[in-house]
């Protein structure tokens, strides 16, 4: 009984080792990709916020110069099309708030009258840019981007990565099960032969070495 169970146990161990090695490799790979993706996403978001800040700032120059708050409000309201941006604040040249736009969903996070220091401390991602007209600074603009997108992205990433890992592990188990025969069939044959010799005391029995691991033409058990 013990002799028959041993090869099976080794087979299982080999499959497990192969599967675990595959899973760990995939986990390291997925983790590295997740870290890179997060870094890349934050870089992209910062770039996007900076670009928006510059564009909006350039479009606010006339409104700032003429003190037209309605026009400035209309200009910065354009960011409502970008759901990543939660709040935009335009300051005049004295650093006083000129106009602001807060996405309705972010009003709880940034209530009216929330100071710029508080906005910056509560911000996940932010960008500021001076508003220039020729060589003169007319004011500055602050944009804040929420983390919501990143959370959804990370969640989706891990869901997809988990699913792919499950598929990959299943494939690894299948492949390992198929390939382990090449290693274990000769061993199983050897074990069966030995058991037969032990039981029948037939020392004329020969077992062919199908591989080249033992480097012997045939196996002859010791008498």
């Amino acid at each position: 009984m013990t002799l028959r169970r041993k090869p099976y146990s080794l087979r299982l161990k080999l499959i497990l080792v192969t599967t675990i090695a595959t899973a760990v490799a995939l986990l390291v790979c997925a983790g590295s990709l997740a870290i890179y993706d997060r870094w890349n996403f934050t870089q992209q978001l910062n770039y996007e916020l900076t670009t928006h800040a510059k564009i909006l700032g350039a479009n606010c120059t006339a409104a700032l110069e003429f003190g037209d708050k309605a026009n400035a409000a209309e200009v910065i309201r354009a960011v409502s099309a970008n759901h990543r941006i939660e709040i935009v604040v335009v300051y005049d040249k004295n650093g006083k708030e000129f106009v602001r736009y807060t996405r309705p969903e972010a009003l709880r996070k940034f209530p009216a009258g929330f100071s710029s220091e508080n906005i910056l401390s509560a911000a996940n991602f932010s960008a500021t840019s001076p508003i220039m007209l020729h060589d003169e600074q007319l004011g500055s603009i602050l944009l804040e981007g929420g983390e919501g997108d990143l959370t959804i992205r990370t969640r989706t990433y891990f869901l997809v990565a988990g699913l792919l890992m499950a598929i990959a592990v299943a494939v690894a188990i299948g492949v390992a099960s198929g390939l382990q025969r090449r290693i274990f069939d000769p061993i199983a044959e050897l074990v069966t032969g030995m058991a037969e010799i032990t039981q029948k005391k037939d020392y004329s029995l020969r077992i062919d070495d199908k591989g080249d691991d033992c480097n012997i033409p045939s196996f002859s058990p010791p008498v």
Partner: protein
Amino acid sequence: MIIAFCLFAPARTHASDREHQVKSGFVYSIAKFCDWDFSKKPGNRFVIGIYRTRAFDLDIDVLNGKTIRGRSVSVEQLRSEADIANCQVVIVGDVGTENIRHLVNLCKNSSTLLVGESEGFTRDGGTIGFVLRDGTVRFQVNLQTAQVDRVSISSKLLTLAEQVFR
């Protein structure tokens, strides 16, 4: 009647002063959003000419010495039409439709911005006309005249204009 005049006249004057202060500030701000063909008027002066109006006298002088496009602003009271040729901006008083058209013809290709505050100034061909709406100073722009006068006006400025004649 005299008492009534004495009572109301200072208030009216104060409002008018405030209005012209705002308009003077607007002239300076508008100039920042315009581009001139400076090759037509070399030198390092940016001349704002006042033509046939005294309404700006007290307020426009504050612009003296400021800088527009790297040139030092100089405000001058123009004595004749011939002086218009030296100006980048000319603020025109209420001179009537015929005179406005005459001035527009005079400024053709001269890279001079014609600014006025009379009713229908822009409609009559002036480049930028101030109008009062609910006690607020607004402005209208005549882009066609600006093109003819060889003054380019930034689209950012046009977004603030009450009306743009194209």
